[in-house]
């Protein structure tokens, strides 16, 4: 299990995470929702061992990475057992999408690289553009490549920050379906999303954050019966926004 306990993180003296504890279980999807500036991405970066919090601990499968300002972690490299897909893709611009996916595998001398990559190219329908450079493809295509790069690593824990933001409804539905496959494969998933349809379809547990704190957490039922006024306000604002948009065909709900 990947979990963080009592994480405190501050940027320039301002606390962006305040005693936050979250668990990512193998074979389950944990979703984080909340308004902009709630600390969702900061929490993801701590769980991905990218940022070191001021205090608290991040544990992966029993290995505890205690954090403090004087401690540098980790002793055992946690990547790519835990890996992340970011909203801004972060694809390496000097490599084709195919090379973006294969490079980490080549460096780790993985044997079945071609099989893995071909499978992912088929799953994400990337054969038409996989040999292009990141700047030569659309945002949705880049996002699929970024997700494929992470999945090619066969991680135990996959952390995703707004990965459906650049996808159209059909592609987002394909990702939801793929989540099920990943869950069945025992991969623990943490995802940040604003896509309520996505949440209802894919999430096992939902965490609502605001101002660097967890305000409410629970199963999918909290989307229908929120216990806190903060989540209620957030959801009503969200629902009114979604209702004002024309429903798109094939949108996962």
């Amino acid at each position, binding site marked *: 299990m990947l979990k963080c306990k009592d994480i405190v993180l501050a940027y320039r003296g301002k606390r962006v995470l305040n005693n936050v504890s979250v668990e990512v279980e193998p074979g389950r999807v944990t979703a984080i929702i909340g308004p902009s500036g709630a600390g969702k991405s900061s929490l993801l970066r701590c769980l*991905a061992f*990218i940022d070191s919090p001021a205090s608290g601990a991040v544990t992966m499968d029993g290995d505890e990475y205690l954090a403090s300002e004087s401690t540098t972690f980790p002793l055992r*490299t946690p*990547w*790519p057992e*835990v*890996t*992340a897909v*970011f909203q*801004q*893709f*972060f*694809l*390496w*611009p*000097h490599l084709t999408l195919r090379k973006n996916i294969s*490079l*980490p595998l080549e*460096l*780790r001398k993985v044997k079945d690289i071609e099989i893995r990559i071909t499978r992912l190219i088929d799953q994400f329908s990337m054969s038409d553009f996989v040999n292009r*450079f*990141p*700047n030569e493809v659309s945002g949705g295509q*880049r996002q699929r490549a970024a997700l494929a*790069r*992470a999945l090619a*690593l066969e991680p135990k824990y996959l952390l995703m920050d707004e990965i459906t933001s650049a996808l159209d409804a059909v592609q987002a539905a394909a990702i939801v379906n793929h989540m099920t496959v990943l869950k069945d494969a025992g991969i623990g998933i943490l995802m940040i999303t604003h896509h309520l349809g996505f949440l209802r379809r894919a999430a096992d547990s939902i965490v609502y954050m605001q101002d660097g704190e967890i305000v409410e957490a629970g199963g999918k039922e909290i989307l229908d019966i929120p216990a806190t006024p903060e989540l209620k306000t957030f959801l009503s604002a969200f629902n009114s926004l979604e209702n004002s948009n024309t429903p798109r065909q094939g949108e996962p709900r």
Partner: protein
Amino acid sequence: MGALDIIAAYPRAFFNGLIVTIQLALTVWSTGLLFGFLLGALAAGRPGSYGRIVSLFSFLLSGLPLLVLLFWLHFPLQSMLNVVIDPFITAAFALSIVNVFAIADIVKGALSDFPTQYVVAARVAGLTPRETLLHIKTPILFRQLIPVLLMLQVTMLQATLFASLISVEEIFRVAQRINAQVYKPVEIYTALGIFFLLVCLPINGIALWLKVRFTRNFSES
């Protein structure tokens, strides 16, 4: 007597001048690239101390005409120190100083502004720091730096002409001396112009090609 006839009449003089120009350019290029890269890396690593020094010197040198620097190093400074230094060394030193700080400034900027997200992506993909340096940082920096550095080195090659003003026997000074004998300025300086075009244009062309090719691939948006 055409340009080619003049070159044919003074082959040794032109050849010697060409050798001096090439020696000067190679000295300026190699010292500039070596020390410029080192200083730039140092400045990026320590932006507070070395970084400020590099920025200050680059700023000062960018405002100082090369001719003034050459004259000052050749005449007043040597007079003040009561020493006589070979003009070639003085010219190589002055041009190298300009090149070193220009390259250091470019390298410092590229290293300081390197998009950290690519390093983060490499970390979470399990790449070691060495692999990240080798496969991610260096190729991206290379694509950013090479076109700019090539164009700068062409400018430095052209700047070697100024060395003639402190009596360095490079190709421009040779051309001046031959012109003083035969007085064929149009032919002589046309030949010189063609020589520089033949050397500089291909390098500029490569720089431009690299810039177009790699800048396109560098941008994600």
